[in-house]
């Protein structure tokens, strides 16, 4: 059984990038009454997003592999998403991560970039969450229900919106 899982694991990366021809975009921004450093600390802590993201029930212990750090997020709505941290830059306060194939959020080849910028005053921040991804269905239309662009856009859009809204609440707590 372990061998079968290991072989299957080899195939996942090969399939992971065979996306279709039309990328989708999510881009949302929120203003937060908290210093950038405090907000960045919450985002940068890749293994603890459940402390501020309301859609996340729990996160597995971080796994360090040859090619990076991985986590499995379990959603309150059910299902998991396996994700890899690409980079976390303290100078730019920018975190980049990707979601692996077959997760509970119906999008493929998702790469998200979250950037914290200084707000109007010292105690304020602005967070920009940008993502690029494709619909789940990779073949010629007709597209099965739940695997189209609209489903991907709704699921990702809702996930980002919920995350930013609650990040604001958590960060603003004194």
């Amino acid at each position, binding site marked *: 059984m372990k061998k079968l899982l290991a072989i299957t694991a080899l195939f996942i990366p090969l399939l992971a*990038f*065979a996306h*279709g*021809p*039309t*990328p989708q*975009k999510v*881009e949302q921004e929120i203003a937060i009454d908290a210093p950038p450093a405090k907000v960045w600390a919450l985002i940068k802590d890749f293994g603890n997003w459940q402390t501020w993201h309301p859609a996340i029930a729990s996160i597995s212990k971080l796994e360090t592999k040859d090619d990076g750090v991985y986590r499995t997020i379990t959603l309150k709505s059910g299902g998991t998403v396996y994700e890899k941290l690409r980079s976390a830059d303290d100078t730019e306060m920018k975190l*980049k991560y990707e979601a692996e194939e077959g997760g509970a959020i119906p999008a493929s080849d998702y*790469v998200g970039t979250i950037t914290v910028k200084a707000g109007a005053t010292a105690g304020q921040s602005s967070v920009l969450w*940008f993502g*690029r991804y494709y619909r789940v269905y990779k*073949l*010629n*239309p007709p597209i099965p229900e739940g695997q189209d*662009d609209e489903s991907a856009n709704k699921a990702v859009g809702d996930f980002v919106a919920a995350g930013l809204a609650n990040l604001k609440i958590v960060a603003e707590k004194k």
Partner: protein
Amino acid sequence: MIRLELILLPLILIAQTALAAPDAYITNQGSHNVSVIDIAQHQVVATIAVGKAPAGVAVSERQHRAYISNVEGQSISVIDTQTRQVIKEIALASAPLGVALNADDSRLFVAYWYDDKIVEFNTADYRIVREFNVGKSPSGLLASLDGHYLFVANRDSNDVAVVDLSKGEVSNRITVGEHPFGLAQSLDGSQLYVVNVHAETLSIIAAPYTAVTATIKVGAHPYCAAASADSIYVTNTEGDSVSVINAASHLVTSTIKVGNVPEGIAYAAATNQIYVANWGDDNVSVIDASNNKLITQIATGAQSRAFGQFIAAAPH
């Protein structure tokens, strides 16, 4: 004795310069339209509604036509570049991405993404002339300047198909890096440039196009390339930058910061500038090719891709 050529030649050159600057056609995949940019003024002079999710573009100066691939609309919009109107929409059997014209603009090639084939249209009557079976997820398309070949980047086969247009068959499949996507060529047509997205390299295939002759490391998740007289410019979609490679030495001489997720790139010979479509910023960056500095940014539509030769190449 009056030297006639001293009078006529400058007048001819002035006339050529005044007529010579072609527009840039930027496909906006998110807003389903095309931004037409006057490259001398650095301004959008028209926004033309096309089909659903346009991406690919090929421009013919001699025919005054721009051909746009509507990926989700599964059609080609034909734009009359003088009136800036869509004069024809060619319905296709499948989703198109890459489009390219042959050397004399008599043929339009369309890559059918899901069907692993290239369909050749007669640009006079839009009829299908031939079809070529190529590799998986055919993406970048480019015709050789001498009229002999069509090159096809087969993204999921990791190779370039060389189609012999006289014989009407695929004459060669050349293995390149992982996930080849965009294609470009040197101004004299002797070097074919292939951008490998996952390998993060540029493969060079020199004439007679039988093998890879050089491989150069570029930036993160590169998509497309364009050539000036002395350099090759490559867009790094996840580095938000353009790698500049000296065409003779093959060394990366600089990395220019551009916008978010830069994709399509083209060289404007008339102004010696490079145009880059930034998918993530809904705009175009303009680079001065003489010093590789950013000149300006021009707002376009949503999710600008400009995949293909979106500025007509200088006549040769």
